[in-house]
């Protein structure tokens, strides 16, 4: 699994959770750039990502995530890539 594959997998998750098909996954994407991204949808998104990739984030990791790029780095790390 590489960065591009993770980005592709994130796309439908984000579209579904934020109910917005226009979201384009980029490394610098964060809550400020998506209207529907609030604390509740954020947590739904994290739960969906954990389920899809069969991983579990630690609290410290969740707090350290500033954007989607950080999340992709963590997924890569957790999948041992």
């Amino acid at each position, binding site marked *: 699994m590489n960065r591009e594959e993770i980005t592709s997998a994130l796309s439908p998750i984000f579209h579904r959770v934020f109910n917005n098909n226009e979201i384009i996954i980029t490394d610098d994407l964060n809550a400020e750039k998506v209207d529907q991204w*609030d604390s509740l949808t954020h*947590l739904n998104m994290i739960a969906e990502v954990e389920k899809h990739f069969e991983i579990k984030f630690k609290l410290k990791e969740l707090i350290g995530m500033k954007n989607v790029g950080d999340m992709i780095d963590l997924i890569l790390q957790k999948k041992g890539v």
Partner: protein
Amino acid sequence: MIRQASHQDFDFIYEAIVQSEYSGGDIFPYESLFGMKPAEFKETVFNIFEEEIDGMPWHYEHWYINELNGHAAGALCSWVEGSDGLSSDLLHAQTLSFLLPAQWQAAKIKLESLSSVTIPRVNGFVQLEHLYTSQDFRGRGVMRELMQFIFETYSGKPFEIQVLKGNIKAVSLYEYMGFSVQNEKCNPAIKNLALLSSDCKLQLTKQHE
């Protein structure tokens, strides 16, 4: 005397959190959401403070105590929104959902109602939260002093407070201190579900002096 809080202030800080969450009414939102009475919720809050999470309002470095005659008389929590790159509300939700996963999951429908009155805090604005004066020290200017201290500490920056509209005494004090209402969000379901003491939330701001 105003000073920054430390570990030994936890009990008073927790009193401030509980009383400010009641917001002049009779509903403790965390009990409505997670079924935890104030005494039961205390350990969770203590664990969050002990984690010392950067950017998290529930962190000793963001708390100030006003002492009178050697007694903690008032407290408030203050931070600059977004200074750590993450919204404080998001950080708060993330931490609670991590520490209380089962309760969070069970509260999802209620949380959705609550999010309908969520007003995003403005990045770069100094936030004032959990403003609390102990019953024995009310009417002595304890909170005015604390607020003035924050205005001077963050001189030149704009300020923001969010409060339930039903907390008329608090709103009057904030307006007296120079804040004005910028935004209001209401949802009657909030009161019907007994989630908060008032179904409207206010966002008040004050530009720098």
